[in-house]
């Protein structure tokens, strides 16, 4: 079973955000990013059609959507790389894109191409100078960041000798170099191997625990689900879903139950209690769906009364992928509407 589809009842592994970086913004739930009715037109193409969203400080925010939905455009506008056509966008309490704001953010673009005449070390040195880091701090951070992304050994090689994943790691290193309070990552795990992806996820959690706000664009819903606090789904330039990841995925109540080895699950009896039961995972787990108003407790009591040992009990959630596919034009590979394709469930 894919563990990402289960959320164990026991504990939320995520540490509570510790916030000390933006004292001015700490009072109340002041959003770090606030976007209202944002419209962006590239000539005739309307990339964003009136999007409103906000990101709270200290959270990891995921922006999802199909290819061409406008995710990158959104980030570019926030960073001042592209200009908005109409609407409002604020970051850290200022209009987006000002130099003062940009000093406090880190950014990993998609499809980045670092100037390949640099080495990892010299590139970070260059970028550090551009954000006006003092020399000593810069040296220290370069060392730290390269260590974190595992490029220390190759730091003096030219970037053109790096593999794709190494470049991506370097991208992450440069985004966090100056310890920004807010980081934008466009497809951060693109091209990174599974181990590396896990490392990046851990790294993001680590940064979050230090109070950094993180804004991620990604297609890898499994990953987003693992790390994000909140997500928003864009489709063709419109925001069609926004919310807490827990509440978005918690919707359907059904449980996964497993007994000790060699014990037989009393399928018929449980069904007789009025529950819907299905075998899963080679008849070692059983899915139990709750109807309106039902609770799982009677089932547990019943199994205990039969002297059966409960080895597994988890609330099965709807995966983010389920949600995503239901929400957007499912199974459509690109930006074009396929004739006869499903209409989005709004």
């Amino acid at each position: 079973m894919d563990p990402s589809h289960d959320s164990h009842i026991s504990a939320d592994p995520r540490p509570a955000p510790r916030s000390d970086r933006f004292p001015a913004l700490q009072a109340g739930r002041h959003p770090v990013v606030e976007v209202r009715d944002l419209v962006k037109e590239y000539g005739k193409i309307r990339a964003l059609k009136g999007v409103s969203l906000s990101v709270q400080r200290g959270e990891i925010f995921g922006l999802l959507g199909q290819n061409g939905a406008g995710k990158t455009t959104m980030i570019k506008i926030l960073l001042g790389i592209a200009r908005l056509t109409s609407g409002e966008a604020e970051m850290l309490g200022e209009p987006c894109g000002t130099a003062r704001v940009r000093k406090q953010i880190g950014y990993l673009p998609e499809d980045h191409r670092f100037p390949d005449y640099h080495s990892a070390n010299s590139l970070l040195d260059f970028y550090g100078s551009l954000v006006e880091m003092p020399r000593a701090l810069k040296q220290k951070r370069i060392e730290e960041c390269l260590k974190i992304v595992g490029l220390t050994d190759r730091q003096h090689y030219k970037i053109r000798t790096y593999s794709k994943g190494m470049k991506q790691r370097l991208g992450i290193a440069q985004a966090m170099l100056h310890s920004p309070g807010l980081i934008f990552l466009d497809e951060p795990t693109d091209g990174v191997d599974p181990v590396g992806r896990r490392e990046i996820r851990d790294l993001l959690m680590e940064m979050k625990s230090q109070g950094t706000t993180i804004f991620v664009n990604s297609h890898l819903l499994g990953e987003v689900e693992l790390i994000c606090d909140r997500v928003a789904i864009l489709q063709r330039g419109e925001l069609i879903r926004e919310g807490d990841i827990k509440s978005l995925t918690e919707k359907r109540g059904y449980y996964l139950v497993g007994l000790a080895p060699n014990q037989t699950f009393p399928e018929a009896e449980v069904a007789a209690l009025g529950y819907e039961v299905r075998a899963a995972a080679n008849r070692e787990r059983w899915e139990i769906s709750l109807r309106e108003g039902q609770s799982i407790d009677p089932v547990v009591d019943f199994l205990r009364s039969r002297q059966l040992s409960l080895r597994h009990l988890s609330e099965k959630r709807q995966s983010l992928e389920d949600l995503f596919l239901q929400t957007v034009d499912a199974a459509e590979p690109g930006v074009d509407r396929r004739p006869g394709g499903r209409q989005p469930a709004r």
Partner: protein
Amino acid sequence: MKFLAILKDSLRETLDVKLFYAMVLLSLLVSLFVASVVYKPQPIDEQIKGSLTFSPLRPTENVNFDILMRLAPNPETQGIPVMVQMEDLQRTDQGPANQPWVGNYDFTLVLKIPHETGQRGPRMGPQGRNPLEGKNEAEVLAAVRKEITSDFLEETLSRRLSFLKGVKVKTLPATEKDQVDYRVSSEGTTITTAKAWFHQPALFFGLVDVPIPLMTLGDIVTFLGDYVIGGFGAMVTILLSIVMTASFLPNMLSKGSVDLLLVKPINRVSLFVYKFLGGLTFMFLNTVVIMVGIWLGIGVRTGLWVDAFLVCILVYTFQFMIFYSVSAVTAVFTRSAIVAILASFTLWIVLFAVGWTHWIFVEAQRDNTEYSRKWGFVLYDGVKAVLPRYKDLDWLTSRMIRHDLFQLTRSTEEKNKAQEEENTRRFNESLDKTYKGYNWTSSLAVSSVFIALMLGLACWRFSTRDY
């Protein structure tokens, strides 16, 4: 701080493709070449011979244009290529031997009638025809003696051997039946310093003599500075620099790279300007290496420290800026290095053509009121006036180099003062006349406005564009 970081980045970019090394190496080679040229003072007989026997019509023969022209109208001597020879040259004063320019000289000038045809003697008219055919040699000789008087020779030699002062010519009694002899004497020369004396340049530390007409050291260095360095060298440097710097901005602006810079807390105009200055610095450093090298090379060899060469560093960098600003604006609009190079080259060709044609057809005709009122003239003059003044700056640099060299080669001795003042006045007059239509202020101002417009346009586009 940020500026230095971007400069360092540009430098890294150039060093990465070994361009900078290549350019510096090239510059050093050129400097070394210039420093390897040796200038040997010419003995005076070479100069007199050289000045006497040169005829633009018959450059390989020992004839003199003035004498031929003088003989041409007389049917007796018409078409006879009378040869000129110098014999028995003597220095008649007691001056120091290593200062030939202070001496008095005597020599015999021999006019010889050729009477051989074929390979050994000079010919005129159809191949192999004897110019004396059907003529009496004695009569011809008498005619020559009649036409080429001592007065005529005195006037001609004073002009041709203009460095000799107090030229006196005496016709000698006849000795041979085919020649007339004259005794020429001079008293001092107009040349007052070694630097104004005639020299023979020899390449590669004196190995290879350069075949040039008789020139003073000052003239040689002027030629070198004006044509070889200022004309050809500067052109090559500027064109090469255009190619080498053309990719800086497009690389920075390329997709995937530009985002990384745009999010840094530096405004786009500064980013652009810094990057532009980065390219300019590249060109500037190169020019410094090459011009200082040339300045040193010539200075060490000749003792002529031509400061104008150092001023050229700034002029060439400024000229380069004209093209680089076009390259930059093209880069911002197209993000393509190739298009940027093409645009700069196109401008270069236009400015080069307009500059030359204006110099030849307009500037030379400016005083001709009949011509200069024509609308074509006015229109052409107007178009040229608003274009950046690339070529004007070239002319002005020439003027500066010439002026500098003149000042460097003139005498500072008290006894030559009057002469030198007169020389200087005449020289300055001729410079003023030649370069009348050009001046630094307007050339720099108009070009600066052009550069500012280009950069302004580029900045505007760069700072309003979505990436």
